[in-house]
């Protein structure tokens, strides 16, 4: 099979998984679990194979498939790997088996439906990253919401209905305006250039006046910013995270939040460069507000899931900052930060799930001295905490450091030219690192040290399955922290192309 064929297989494997699950006789939970894990592992193996085969010296799409879908409108089924999505696709495939394995003991109700929904969301997320056609992208983007709605709504906590409806209503509102913008963008491209196409490669040929660009960017940005989420559009996130089952939280924090930043990087900013340039100060301010505000809120939470939820808002603010810096190093840092956050926050949510399975409470106050009660658990927890704080040698350090470096590099010349805002914002963003250390260490301190306390004692330390899940994550965190070269090389050309696209004016009359 050709590499492009393998990529299609990677995309559609989860659907195959759903078909297999349907065939399993009801009540056979063990078989459902084993089958789900096997499908996810195969997907990971195939993705890893493509990741290795991915040539970092080639700009543009690799392993591309393009078939007409709705020929009359220029819609095609077009997928492929490029520097923008290769790491995120790898991340999605990497977390898949972990998500499945983490739910082995936690999910006992409607097991078949649960894994079918996990497959559905995996399929939609893969599709969103791989899509190279705006119509296809939108279909996957929106479709992602449905399995998540089920995951939170059926297997979530007490206020799950409220949380899941809120999640859908937020997400769908952003999407509906994006849909209007998509229709307008494609139609105006057709009107002005005669090209009827939804392909990303064709959409950058559009020439739009500044006011239209601004409106379209606003519509796209609203949708993406809700997903990231950027303050003040973040209020769905803590609810969704707190109520979601562990697997749902991991999917949400690990991959789905990156959809927003990926959307900005792949579509939002490159499609409307002039509007992006105009609104960079506002967007940058919002990014920094998210960093600081998210960190401050994380500092005062008593629900351990909420701490990580708010920390996600803070960490993704860095991604936005890196993307807006338009410095190669900052852009690459942003991509590394996306992957790093996926690993670290995903891992932390898994750990919260593990302790919740044992003690059935998420209140920080109920815990203490877990270092004595659960030594193995505590070691893993400490490692992930330090990665979240950004300790050198972990992935968290690489991402945040590069982003801040890029932001300073971009801000300094502006400062010399008399524009102090970027420099001031960057300086404020640095405080986020300190705040990050504060809230995570407060969390770890209360959790692991002090007088031993935990409901439902005696506690059993991690089993082999749990150790394996966390071991894999921790290994990945260190791998990305110690050897960021490989992944960064794969994104280098994409970062350059992103910078070039966002720096080129595309007002009417500008050269093609």
């Amino acid at each position: 099979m050709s590499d492009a064929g393998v990529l299609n297989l990677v995309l559609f494997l989860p659907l195959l998984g759903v078909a297999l699950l349907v065939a399993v006789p009801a009540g056979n939970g063990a078989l459902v679990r084993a089958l789900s894990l096997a499908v996810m592992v195969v997907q990971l193996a195939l993705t890893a194979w493509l990741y290795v085969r991915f040539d970092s010296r080639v700009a543009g799409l690799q392993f591309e498939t393009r078939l007409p879908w709705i020929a009359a409108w220029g819609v095609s089924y077009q997928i492929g790997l490029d520097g923008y999505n290769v790491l995120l696709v790898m991340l999605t495939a990497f977390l898949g088996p972990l998500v499945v394995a983490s739910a082995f003991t936690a999910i006992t109700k409607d097991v078949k439906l649960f894994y079918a929904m996990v497959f559905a969301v995996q399929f939609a997320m893969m599709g969103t990253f791989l899509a190279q056609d705006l119509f296809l992208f939108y279909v996957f983007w929106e479709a992602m919401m449905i399995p998540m709605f089920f995951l939170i709504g059926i297997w979530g906590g007490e206020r799950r209905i409220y949380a899941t409806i809120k999640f859908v209503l937020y997400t769908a509102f952003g999407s509906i305006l994006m849909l209007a913008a998509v229709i307008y963008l494609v139609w105006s491209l057709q009107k002005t250039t005669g090209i009827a196409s939804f392909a990303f490669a064709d959409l950058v040929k559009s020439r739009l006046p500044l006011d239209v660009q601004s409106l379209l960017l606003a519509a796209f940005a609203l949708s993406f910013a809700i997903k990231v989420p950027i303050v003040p559009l973040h209020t769905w996130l803590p609810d969704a995270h707190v109520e979601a089952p562990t697997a749902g939280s991991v999917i949400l924090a690990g991959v789905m939040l990156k959809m927003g930043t990926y959307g900005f990087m792949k579509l939002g900013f490159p499609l409307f460069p002039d509007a992006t340039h105009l609104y960079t100060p506002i967007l940058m301010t919002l990014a920094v507000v998210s960093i600081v505000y998210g960190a401050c809120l994380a500092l005062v939470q008593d629900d351990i899931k909420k701490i990580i939820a708010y920390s996600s808002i803070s960490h993704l603010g860095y991604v936005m900052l890196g993307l807006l810096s338009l410095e190669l190093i900052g852009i690459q840092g942003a991509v590394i930060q996306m992957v790093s956050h996926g690993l670290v926050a995903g891992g932390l949510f898994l750990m919260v799930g593990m302790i919740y399975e044992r003690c059935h409470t998420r209140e920080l106050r109920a815990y203490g001295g877990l270092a004595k009660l659960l030594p193995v658990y505590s070691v893993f927890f400490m490692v992930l905490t330090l990665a979240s704080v950004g300790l050198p040698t972990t992935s968290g350090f690489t991402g945040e450091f590069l982003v801040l470096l890029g932001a300073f590099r971009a801000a300094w010349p502006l400062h010399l030219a008399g524009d102090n805002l970027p420099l001031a914002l960057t300086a404020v963003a640095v405080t986020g690192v300190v705040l990050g250390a504060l809230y995570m260490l407060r969390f770890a301190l209360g959790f692991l040290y002090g007088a031993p306390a935990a409901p439902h004692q005696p506690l059993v330390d991690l089993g082999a399955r749990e150790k394996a899940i966390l071991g894999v994550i921790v290994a990945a965190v260190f791998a990305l922290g110690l050897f960021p070269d490989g992944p960064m090389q794969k994104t280098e050309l994409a970062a350059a192309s992103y910078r070039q696209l966002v720096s080129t004016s595309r007002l009417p009359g500008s050269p093609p």
Partner: protein
Amino acid sequence: MNANAVLTAMLPEHLLLLGIVVAIGVEIAGQGRKLSFAVALATVAAASIAAALLALDGYAAAPFAGQFSVTPATLLVKAMVLAFALPVLLMSRDDFEGGEFAILLMSSLYGACLMQSADSFPTLFLGLELMSLPVYVLVLLAYQRPQSAEAALKYLVLGGTATAMFLMGASLLYGTTGSLSLGVFARALAAPDSLSRAAVVLIVLAFFLKAAIVPFHAWAPDAYEAASVPVTAYMATVVKAAVLLAVVRLFGGATLTSPLLELVAALPLLSIVWGNLAAMRQPSLRRMIAYSSIAHAGYLFYALLGDPAGRLQAVAFYLLAYGLLNLLAFAALPAAADDRERDRFDNLRGLFHRAPFAALMLGVAMLSLAGIPPFPGFVAKFLIFRNVMAAGHTTYAVLGLIGSYLGIYFYLRVIQVMFMSPDAAVAGSGPSRPVAVGASLACLAAALLLVVFPGWVIARM
């Protein structure tokens, strides 16, 4: 007029007529329900296939010039409307005792087909009435309770009002132009004189009433609720489709201009918003679908804002997706001892655990009706709003899309009720309905084809 053209062009109608005669004969002979059911099923299937085959053959003829004509496009929409009736028939098998249902259904279908070929106001009127009158009876059939009579009467009176408005408008047009041809309407759209304008407004309002556009919608929830499930499905799909397709035929190649443009945009927009808002508070699926269909009628009228060349395509594709998924939902609805109790949300609670298949089917239908991709309702919505935007009505398109956002909640609420709520205390399940389940599976298969090959279907419409 040559006999051959009369025979071929009206083949679907002739087949229906034949079926009606046979079914009446069966009824007179007292052969019972099973046979008339089979006759109706075979008739409608044959008529639908005949229309589709003629359409694919590229057949076009005008056997009665100026009154009745067929083109591949009209034959295709006839095939679609007739095909919608098949699941209705299948799901009705367990609901109706006598053979009247089959006879009335086929008569109504005859009218629905006639409307699609009408070239003059009298033919259109004939089709409209022939379609509507049996439905008034169908609402009451096999369903005797006081509220049904009230709802059917309301439906009848308001239907009569619509007819009167339609005839008044047509006669005004005849008065100003001396012609009863449908083409007169398209020309009157651009005419500045008040008589033409009054005629146009009367006719448009008549169709608003028939399609249940706010503020002429009040009959729909009552009628939908009063009818038994198959009849509700028939009203929501076949009748709605026939009316909307006739509207597209009526408007022909005319581009809308102010002030009619505002009328055709504002009331449907209001329908979208109000239909979606009111649907949130309904206690049963039938009432909810009634309000949802009010909103969907809004989207469909929106298609008139688009370029005339793309109207039929947009409306037909939308109706195809909308009709299939509505039928899917109604056919999948699990049986209960009492028809009234079948679709109450209280009784659908926790349905997934009692009847997972039905719950999944209904779930797919709800998501598609909400216009959420990848389900076919999304492509349909996209097509309509794309045309509206391409015609330059960006503001209306954005407002319509925001209106459609309001609809997401109540569709998801059905899923929430079925999947996420504690089980309802339903004493046992009703009899199994293999035929209806088969119908829902067929609809699902068709919907899936629409998901995978939307381009193929769009290219042929």
